């Protein structure tokens, strides 16, 4: 028997066995339940604060929580992921103080909240942008959203179809387990499937590495990472439509909302933030808080 197989499968089985014990299995992931602090039930004492929601934001919110607890040592924060939907459900059920969400609340969720006497209040805390990258030797400088989508759905297979050289395009995507994959699919591919010829890269660095190596490839990555890699890959400007101006991806254009492939990341509270959540949210929006946003690869809101 090949022992290798047993080695990969056994931990996987154990992993799944552990996960099945979690009550919230709507979108669990190994990284999502990241308690940033000692777990304590919500509202048990004045300084406990729970933040639940988006998996995309877990790393960011944990970093905030860590720094916040250094400034304000009496605070007890617990941060968990599970997905934006899980976060909204928890807010509506009153099991979390703050819901972290990478999408705005849906009308359905607002009415569910109203039935329970909860008024969700939205606070934008950071921005997340995805940059389309190509090899530095690629003569192209800009694409429209439509063209970018058509390249990744496989409608365009040659660079000259979008104004480049007569060479085959190698589309590079992230693996389907990535949040970026889904966000890009929803916003740029307009929910269509990726072409089967798209090569799926196991990580952001593998993506940047391949784009830097292969002259005819095109990929995408978060803005923070693209800026770090700007010497070896070229960031394309994006036009919202044919008539619009091409927008260079940068912290400024993302913050102003001009760059089209970006989304806001939110906190939702029940009504105005309470006594414990208010100082934490203020910390997140402060200069220090927004510096953490930049350090974790996102874009500040101001």
């Amino acid at each position, binding site marked *: 028997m090949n022992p290798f197989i047993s080695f990969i*499968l056994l931990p996987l089985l154990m992993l799944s066995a552990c996960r099945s014990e979690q009550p919230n299995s709507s979108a669990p992931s190994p990284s999502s339940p990241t308690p940033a602090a000692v777990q304590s039930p919500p509202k048990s004492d004045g300084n406990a604060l729970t933040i639940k929601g988006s998996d995309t934001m877990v790393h960011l919110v944990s970093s905030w929580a860590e720094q916040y607890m250094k400034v304000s040592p009496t605070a007890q924060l617990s941060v968990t992921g599970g997905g934006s939907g899980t976060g909204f459900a928890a807010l509506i059920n009153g099991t979390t103080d703050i819901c972290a969400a990478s999408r705005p609340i849906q009308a359905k969720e607002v009415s569910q909240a109203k039935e329970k006497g909860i008024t969700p209040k939205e606070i934008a805390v950071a921005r997340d942008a995805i940059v389309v990258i190509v090899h530095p030797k690629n003569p192209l400088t800009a694409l429209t959203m439509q063209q970018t989508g058509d390249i990744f759905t496989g409608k365009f297979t040659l660079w000259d179809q979008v104004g480049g050289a007569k060479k085959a395009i190698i589309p590079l995507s992230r693996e389907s387990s990535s949040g970026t994959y889904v966000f890009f699919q929803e916003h740029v591919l307009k929910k269509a499937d990726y072409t089967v010829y798209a090569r799926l890269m196991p990580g952001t660095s*593998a993506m940047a590495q391949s784009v830097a*190596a292969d002259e005819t490839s095109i990929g995408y990555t978060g803005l923070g990472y693209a800026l770090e890699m700007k010497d070896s890959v070229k960031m394309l400007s994006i036009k919202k439509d044919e008539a619009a101006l091409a927008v260079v991806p940068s912290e400024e254009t993302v913050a102003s909302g001009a760059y089209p492939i970006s989304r806001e990341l939110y906190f939702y509270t029940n009504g105005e933030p309470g006594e414990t959540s208010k100082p934490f949210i203020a910390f997140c929006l402060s200069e220090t808080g927004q510096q953490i946003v930049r350090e974790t690869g996102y874009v500040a809101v101001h």
Partner: protein
Amino acid sequence: MNELGFSDKAMRLLLLGAASMSILIVLLIFLFLGKEAIPFAEKPGLLALLDSRWIPVSFQQPRFGLLPLLAGSTLITVLATIFTVPLSICGAMYIADLASPLEREILKPFIEILAAIPSVVLGFFGLLVVAPFIKELFHLPSGLSALTGAVLLALMAVPTVISISEDAIRSVPLAYKKASLALGASQLQTMLRVTVPAALPGIVAAVMLGMGRIIGETMVVLMVTGNAGIITWQPAESVRTMTATIAAEMGEVPFGSVHYSALFWVGLVLLLITFGLNVIAQRVLKKYGMMQ
């Protein structure tokens, strides 16, 4: 060997327990894989596994066809075997028959070191050295291809195949060789017409075990093959193997979803293939009395 016997019963039991552990584990793995895979057979049905596309995450219709993954694993395994076999057999022939004791003392440890290189490290090497080299050599648009994966997997399989083939060649009775040489055959003729044919079953088994290693390898293929789920027989194309699919997707898949049980089907198919290869190899070895 049994006459030696172990007087210490406790020791005997302990060893028996350790030896039978693997049987228990294999059975348990089959059982658990099957258990997690069953829901898929009920809901989308097993026919869904015959789809020509593997698109597990989709806003349209998720598709869970195993065919591109099977094709990817097959292409890589066939290519890697083609690279492995001549290299290993030549190497084994030299070490078993021609090498001086000093040469053997240098060659064998290095072959073992090659076997011991962690596959992630080999993957890095592949990504940074082999992929760009293959890209240049064949003027490909990208070095992330089935060919690159196969070259690296061949590197991983060669030590296994050399070691077992060498044992097989050395276990050919000396009388065969002496008789052949006495009849006036040259050393080369003796090797090709007498020694290697006599050792052939062992070599075949070695190759099958090597193939088992190739098909089950994960990290290298995940890193260097590009992972595009297309059905192709072109070595220059990107392919997605069964192992890479499980490794890339299992971490974030919603527990209990259709995608989750589809991944267990991938695992089950993979396990059956490696199991089959191993069983065949063992039987060949046993039939020709070469079981070590």
